[in-house]
């Protein structure tokens, strides 16, 4: 209940601030239309916005899950094989200086205008933070704990599942929460290269038609997608990392 309050309060405050500022400061609707009007636009065209929400959510989630898995697996591999880490980690770092948006057109060329193309961009943005944080979490494990488990006859697999992965989980989730927004950004940008449905496509259509209300409606839809992914990650985290508050 308190968590819900902490979540709703800033949203309500922001909504009140929006409506209040527009009414009191006479802000031109060209910059900020009243919130009522934006919500009205979403309501009037609901099936379209609902569909955009689902499509973009699907693209972001597929890329997000793939990025999370690859991130954790790479971190495990880098931890076990020092030479692999020395060889590949600089490439991982360099990959993040490449403006992925520039790749958008090429990735759409490779995968066609499919869910996979947007998911690939979302993946590209998410795997790196997860790798870095998971690796830091694994490396932070006390070697004496590993030695203890080994002295009890634990296999490498036992040590990974019972010690290394659980110890790294809090940091992995920190990265996942950050990556939720990045995956969404990847999906939206991916839709700019010729997609006809989705939040990114809606933003682009609103830009070409110079419709500020539609643009704000699309931004709110993007916020809803981001909030949905973030919320699920936070829920899973609360269940899996139940000891977090004790840290």
């Amino acid at each position, binding site marked *: 209940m308190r968590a819900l309050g902490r979540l709703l309060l800033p949203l309500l405050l*922001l909504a009140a601030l929006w409506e209040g500022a527009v009414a009191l400061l006479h802000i031109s609707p060209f910059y900020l239309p009243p919130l009522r009007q934006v919500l009205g636009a979403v309501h009037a065209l609901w099936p379209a916005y609902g569909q955009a929400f689902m499509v973009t959510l699907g693209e972001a989630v597929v890329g997000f899950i793939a990025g999370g898995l690859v991130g954790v697996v790479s971190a495990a591999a880098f931890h076990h094989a020092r030479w692999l880490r020395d060889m590949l*980690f600089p490439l991982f770092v*360099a990959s993040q200086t490449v*403006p992925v948006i520039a790749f958008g*057109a*090429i990735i759409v*060329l490779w995968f066609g205008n499919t869910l996979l193309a947007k998911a690939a961009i979302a993946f590209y943005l998410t795997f790196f933070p997860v790798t870095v944080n998971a690796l830091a979490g694994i490396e932070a494990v006390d070697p004496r704990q590993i030695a203890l488990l080994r002295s009890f006859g634990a296999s490498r697999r036992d040590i990974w599942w019972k010690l290394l992965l659980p110890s790294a989980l809090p940091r992995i989730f920190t990265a996942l929460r950050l990556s939720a927004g990045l995956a969404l950004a990847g999906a939206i940008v991916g839709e700019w290269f010729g997609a006809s449905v989705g939040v990114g496509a809606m933003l682009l259509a609103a830009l070409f038609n110079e419709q500020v209300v539609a643009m704000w409606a*699309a931004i709110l839809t993007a*916020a809803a997608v981001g909030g949905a992914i973030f919320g699920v990650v936070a829920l899973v985290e609360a269940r899996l990392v139940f000891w977090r508050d004790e840290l």
Partner: protein
Amino acid sequence: MNAAAARGALGGLLLVVLWEAVVRLAEVPPWILPPPSGILATTWTVRAALLDAGAMTLFEATLGYALGAALGLVLAMLLALATPVRRLVLPMVVVVNSVPVAAYAPLALLWFGTGALSKVIMVAFIVGFTVFLNALDGLLRVDPAAAALLRSFGAGPFGVLWRLRVPSALPALLVGLRVSTVRSMIVAIVTEMLGSQKGLGWTIFEAVLQIDFVRVWAAILVASLISLGFFAGVSAVERRVVFWR
């Protein structure tokens, strides 16, 4: 050169060789994936245009970066002093920040036109948020005992801010500043792709329209090199300022 750096160089070299070999042996058409040698050759041929575009993008990125970093830092210091306002404002900032910047780009273009202004403002916006959140986190994460000690010596809130909070926030702030370099280039390029007459983003957009994908790769190469340079520059400044790390 130590072993780690040698392996890193080997990894990069292997990637390039593998890329070149696969493209040549499998005869991949250049519009799917050009070989590294082809990308380098094209980059060299159109170097004048690419440099021109790169200078424009770098100008927008650095100007927006400076503006955003200054604004984010000042706001973080103000909010570090004003606790009640911070409790009210911070959750709202987090909500606004949860929408990807890319979603705001069309608004910036509509409001500020397709010139450099819209890109500078977009970059300042993202850099401002990143620096603000990092700096605030650092400013607030001080040892309460140290703050109490300074206060017992008669330091006011400004004294504590200047003598304790700012120096101890420097490492977190500099992480924000470093991460922001690459982001500022990416945001400038993203906004240019949506609407502009100059810059690397425009070059990429134009090349896509002309189905000249090797030129897209060349522009990506130049953009990455500029990003790396910007990143290295800020890191060098960081090593001088936070000399005690």
